[in-house]
């Protein structure tokens, strides 16, 4: 990125190192919460609930460490190089996308075209997931890889319109400006449709939850079916990082960023991000995995017109301001 003209909204250099760490910590917390809810469904209201909850809360950490003990794995006639590039791209894309998310009012970088940057980094996941699915030369993982491309075609357009709507409301593609424009009223108040669509696409681009079909159980894990050890850790961990990054980005876009009473700005960002993540993690349990041959029609016939209408409303308001 070219250096932005004003650096007021930019964090010091050490934030570059801190960012992946913070992302990982938040991702572990979110995954832990998810595991606790899953354990609840698994065991019901039986005895020993407290101990199980505690055990589930640290399960993601344990699983991550356990993967380090395992061999990496190759398959016959695979393209290991491409597969590993794909795998590495997932966490990389997450960190690069998160670089423009302001924590409080300061982001690691606040480029003029921050919103487009975020969108471009998240689009790297298209390449990443397909490559990771292609690499092992296995049917089930390739089916998983193709599923994500279909998913991308379904979610990307409504997603772009949702992003555009927020930028339109602020009159800028700079994330800092978008936050500043929400000083009085959060965008979610007058852009509810765009916010809802954004939440859907946040799950979709992290291929997680209801949009986890590329890694579906019906294809034995799909993209991740043939990976073990570090490869598996990077892919599954990168998925959580992506989810955290996309959930966190909804805060400056629609939820007023660091704006809020009493608490400092960074605390508001963390609180709101946690809220969005909790909403996604709880909400995911309400629906089965969405198959794209069904969701595609919904996305194009319902969500695209909906987001276009939302953008029209915002445009009219902005013009009359």
């Amino acid at each position: 990125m070219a250096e932005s003209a004003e650096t007021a909204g930019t964090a010091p250099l050490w934030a570059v190192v801190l960012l992946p760490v913070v992302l990982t910590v938040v991702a572990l917390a979110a995954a832990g919460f998810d595991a606790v809810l899953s354990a609840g469904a698994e065991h019901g209201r039986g005895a020993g609930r407290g101990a199980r909850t505690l055990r589930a809360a640290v399960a993601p950490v344990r699983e991550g460490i356990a993967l380090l003990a395992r061999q990496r794995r190759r398959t016959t006639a695979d393209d290991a190089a491409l597969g590993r590039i794909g795998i590495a791209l997932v966490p990389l894309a997450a960190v690069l996308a998160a670089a423009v998310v302001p924590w409080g009012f300061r982001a690691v970088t606040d480029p003029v075209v921050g919103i487009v940057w975020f969108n471009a980094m998240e689009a790297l996941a298209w390449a990443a997931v397909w490559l990771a699915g292609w690499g092992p030369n296995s049917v089930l993982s390739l089916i998983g890889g193709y599923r994500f491309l279909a998913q991308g075609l379904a979610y990307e357009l409504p997603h772009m319109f949702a992003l555009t709507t927020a930028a339109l409301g602020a009159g800028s593609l700079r994330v800092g400006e978008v936050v500043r424009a929400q000083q009085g009223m959060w965008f979610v108040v007058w852009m509810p449709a765009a916010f809802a669509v954004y939440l859907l696409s946040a799950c979709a681009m992290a291929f997680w939850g209801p949009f986890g079909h590329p890694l579906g159980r019906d294809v034995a894990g799909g993209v991740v079916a043939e990976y073990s050890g570090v490869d598996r850790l990077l892919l599954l961990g990168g998925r959580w990082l992506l989810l955290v990054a996309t959930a966190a980005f909804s805060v400056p876009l629609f939820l007023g960023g660091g704006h809020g009473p009493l608490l400092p700005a960074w605390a508001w960002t963390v609180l709101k991000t946690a809220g969005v993540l909790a909403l996604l993690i709880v909400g995911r349990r309400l629906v089965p995995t969405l198959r794209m041959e069904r969701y595609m029609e919904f996305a194009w016939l319902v969500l695209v017109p909906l987001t276009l209408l939302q953008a029209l409303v915002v445009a009219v308001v902005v013009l009359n301001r």
Partner: protein
Amino acid sequence: MPDVAVFWALGALAVVSGVMVFRFDSMARATYALLLSLLCVGGLVIVLGLDYLGVVVVLMMTIEMAIMAVFMVMYMMNPAGLMPMSMLHNKKGAAVLCTLVFLLLAAGIVLAPWPKRSGRPADDPTKALGTALMGPHILTMMTLGFALFATIVATVVLATRRGRYDRFGDDLRARTADDPVRGGVGR
């Protein structure tokens, strides 16, 4: 100074990965070498100070290449990248043509009388681009937009074997479409 170094590094990488497109014997590798080349070009545009265009190149090319890989694999009969294949056809003709085009373009760069810079670049090139596209060039953009859209529609119409009469019956009265794969809205 670092800008210049980055420029040359990206430029070199773009050319090298562009060459690799023709050296790789796997469809997937060739496609993604092309993507790498295009990403470098996007980076070059950013280094030149046109942030918006650069990032949009990265965004669009990633999505396009990801989709293109599917079609390449589908039509080029290279299942799971197993069969090594050459990306080169008509080697001699292509080589001659490429050399000629390269020489022509290079000659153009060297020989063209480049104008001196008049005025100074806009503070916000993104805004300048937007006002230019939506202002004096709006007619071009609209024409382009409609032409592209018409092309897409025409291509789909030509490609599909099934029209609405196949889907909804001869009198178009059927409540749900007769498709091999059912959609999710429940029409």
